[in-house]
């Protein structure tokens, strides 16, 4: 996906300055956030939803979310904070859209890769603790070597296309597929040992 946004020759504010704008209730905070991180956030959302209108709405919701969160929040790393908000909003919309029909996005493809042990629509009657699963995933990710860690988060958190990951790491597509297969095998074992099943 190519995005073309012309901002003229000016440099972005520091994260600290942008956060101060949020804290001062200055609307410029959103303009500056969009200038500095809009493109990347759009990419994250686009990977999940693959629809321009949906993406723009989610991006607006994400900025509104950031506006409502700061203050009281004062994120250590603004980019990570914005990515978390954007992804949550996009994922929520993704699952709503999935109930109505197929969503032709990279997220759908990424989820299909793990259908072996993560069901598309299992009735989740048993009590589910997202935080606990988050901890298990975090421990699993930490156990991976640096490169696999990067590939895992790129593919399953950010839903990055495989060829993008391959280009970033300067590796072949087959190598990324091989690494992903190894990650999935280890992930399946981890989840099963923790009592998670389809």
């Amino acid at each position: 996906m190519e995005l073309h946004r012309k901002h003229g020759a000016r440099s972005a504010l520091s994260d600290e300055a942008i956060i101060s704008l949020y804290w001062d209730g200055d609307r410029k905070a959103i303009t500056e956030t969009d200038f500095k991180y809009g493109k990347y956030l759009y990419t994250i959302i686009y990977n999940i939803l693959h629809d321009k209108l949906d993406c723009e709405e989610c991006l607006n919701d994400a900025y509104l979310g950031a506006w409502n969160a700061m203050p009281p929040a004062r994120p250590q790393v603004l980019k990570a904070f914005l990515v978390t908000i954007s992804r949550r909003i996009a994922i929520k919309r993704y699952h709503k859209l999935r109930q109505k029909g197929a969503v032709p996005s990279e997220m759908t493809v990424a989820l299909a890769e793990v259908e072996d042990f993560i069901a598309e629509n299992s009735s989740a009657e048993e009590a589910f603790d997202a935080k606990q699963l988050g901890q298990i995933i975090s421990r699993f990710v930490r156990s991976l070597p640096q490169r696999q860690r990067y590939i895992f988060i790129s593919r399953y958190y950010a839903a990055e296309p495989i060829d993008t990951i391959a280009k970033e790491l300067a590796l072949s597509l087959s190598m990324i597929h091989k690494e992903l297969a190894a990650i999935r095998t280890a992930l399946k074992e981890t989840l099963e040992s923790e009592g998670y099943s389809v």
Partner: protein
Amino acid sequence: MNQQQWNEGLDHMDEDLLRNYLTAKDQYVHKRRNRQRFFHVAAAAACLCLIVGVLLLVQHYRNNIPQIGNYKRIQLTGNTLGESVSSYITQDTAIVNEAKENLPTQLPIYKITPRKITSKEFQAMKERLGLPDSDSPLFGVEKDRNKVDGRFTYYATGTFTMSEEELEALAWETFHKLSFLEGDYTYYGIRGEDTISAYDGEIVTSVLVSFYRQLDGVRVIGNDRCDMWFNDDGLVEIHIALYDYKQIGTMDLIPLENATSRIKTPDAFSLEGSLNSAVETLRVDRINLVLVNQHSNDCTILQPVYNFIGTAIGNNETEVGFSSKIIAIPESYTYEAD
């Protein structure tokens, strides 16, 4: 588990993993852009090659393109987090950054080569400093390739009563007698002292002063050293290790902003005193860059490190100095030591 639950679980993944991922992504994207830029330059260079010949192009390539991923990464020692310091720095520890430094985003890549001290240079040094031949098992001066080590009196003898000005003048006088010390050196001042306990208190018998090598205004630390001990009688001990540095390219530094976010989880951390409580606030007063020479560990280039210096304030309002060091060379240039 279904897909929605899986995605909710991912949303609760530890934030530091996401932060590290985003940092790594920035570096990979930057590296990719550099790679693309490189291809443009290479295409132009290929045209030039028709004129100046293949040989010159290869020479140009070898001399100027950083060897991405080829350098063994330095290892910092000291009180790292996860050991004793983890009990001081907690998630609640606040960071107050008052540093205003404007640090470079790129630095030259310097290849390290030990600079051999010749017998002639060594002999000249002994004559200029008036040092005897090493015929005593305890005292004397010796040379080993790029190093000079000598001691000329007992640790417990002598006194040190000089003023700082007198000491600096004496140190420079000695320094200028060492003709093999080339390049830009800075006088650091007193770094240590030898003392003995007497009935009426401690007596300083000698003090250690150091000179630091500088490259482009950045201090070199690690194996490169020029340490001298003095007492009132003059030079009592000397330790020198010499290295040559040749620029072979240019490296990007990890953004200061990214390093700043890691002040609490650095590569090395030290407190200048003891705090009897957890650290409530780390106030960064200044940030500087240092270049680390770990040539003896097969690290063939100087590697930059951000040094965050400031004050750690405890829950009980106790204050001590701290230093938080973060390796500034991107991981993409290096591989980890075994």
